């Protein structure tokens, strides 16, 4: 069984925000909703070896968002990807509160990029009928994975800072990176078992 994992090479990230834009383009997220984020460290820390920190849903094995979800809308697929069923979500925002990584968000149908009235393109890609008033977050681009492609953020990254692969397959590049590089897991102490590894 495949078990998808993700690595972020903090030494390679140059803060181009290409992954953020690729994610928005691929998944059609409204203004102010970002499934992929890049944090910049404070100015006094910018001389550190890794000034930019890309973050997204870590698709945790013990996903607190799935535990908190009262409807079962947030659930884990067989391959470990945590997804939200927009048709079941009631928009209680428990997953937003429960996620220590601030990966979830909710959109109440505000303005689009071109004003209050959405363009036909926006109406289509925001999937208003299903996503309005529900939680949303990174899906690991499972629609692309299912077709044998990499997630949009991984494909776009110009410095190869982002990688993904099957954690259960010892031959994958992600396992090679984890075995040969130093890494840390975000908030490992919380017991969420995130599947995102920050290479340092």
């Amino acid at each position, binding site marked *: 069984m495949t078990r998808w994992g993700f690595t972020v090479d903090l030494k390679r990230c140059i803060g181009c925000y290409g992954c953020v834009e690729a994610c928005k383009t691929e998944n059609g997220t409204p203004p102010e909703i970002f499934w992929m984020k890049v944090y910049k460290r404070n100015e006094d820390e910018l001389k550190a070896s890794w000034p930019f920190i890309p973050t997204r849903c870590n698709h945790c094995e013990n996903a607190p968002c799935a535990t908190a979800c009262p409807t079962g809308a947030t659930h884990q697929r067989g391959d470990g990807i945590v997804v939200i069923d927009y048709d079941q979500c009631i928009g209680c925002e428990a997953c937003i*509160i429960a996620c220590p990584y601030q990966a979830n968000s*909710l959109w109440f149908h505000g303005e689009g990029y071109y004003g209050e009235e959405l363009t036909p393109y926006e109406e289509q890609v925001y999937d208003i009928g299903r996503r309005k008033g529900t939680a949303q977050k990174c899906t690991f681009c499972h629609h692309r994975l299912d077709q044998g492609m990499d997630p949009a953020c991984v494909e776009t990254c110009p410095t190869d800072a982002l990688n993904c692969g099957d954690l259960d397959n010892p031959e994958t590049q992600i396992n090679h990176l984890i075995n040969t590089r130093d890494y840390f897991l975000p908030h490992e102490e919380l017991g969420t078992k995130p599947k995102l590894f920050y290479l340092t």
Partner: protein
Amino acid sequence: MFQTHVRDPRAPILTLGYRDQHVWGGMIAVALWAGGTGAGAYFMSKILLTTAVISSLTASISGWVELIFAATGIICLTIHLGRPLRFLNAIRRPHTAWISRGAIIPPLFVLFVLVSLIPSIPVFSELPWHEGTIAWKVIVIVAMVLAIGYIMYTGMVISTWNSIPFWNTPLIPIIFTTASLMGGTAITEIVMAVRGITNPVIDLFVIGFISGNVLLIVMLIIDARTRERTVKESMHRFLTLGRGICFWGGVVFIGFIIPMTLVMIDYWVSPEGLTGRIVLVIAGISVLIGGLCQRYCILKAGRYRLPI
């Protein structure tokens, strides 16, 4: 037609730092306050009825007030949902989610309280479960258990997340419990005062619950000093929310000092007639306002850990 206002399409530059939770605010605070207070009032009124501190009529009248409070809590929670029409989906996972437990326990509580109160309406006084029957006692006991569940839910629903360390302490459910019982006793006191009855035992309960709540808030403040930086920042926000008006004005002055002073005056000086009744009504309303401010401050002070 789309050219009048174009947003900056670039990704925002986010600086790594502590961020406040902004999704649960006033509406959830009202829901937790109304629900907890209603359930607390029911629990306290039945205890006071059993110990003959209040009369059956007082318990019935406050029962209707409790019902309104508890139902208000449920309505506010439902309105807050992004998809309110799907609220029935919320009962699916009570084994893991406190939201689910909160979608099951409060409606059941309201239902049982309503059933227990119906015979207090003269037209329905001959129903088989009227006051004093075994059936009525069973309904009341079940409603009391549900009241405890409702009170616990209001604290547990926010304290179980370790994403917001300020909430993630056993003190929060305890504070919410004492605040619920404090507000509940205040409702009973208001009902009695409006009916022109006073009983010093109620005053002692109010003084006791306020003292306990003050002690717990002090413990929360002291505890925050020894915990991680996020909690310290949350505590700073807790104390300074709305330039400090919410905590120092709402929680401390209106919620603690005013009712404590008035109830003590009533207990020791025992003003007679209208003056005494007004004193107790003001004290009770102050407790309720303070309880609402307390929930609001705690909710709004929630701040996330750093995302990595």
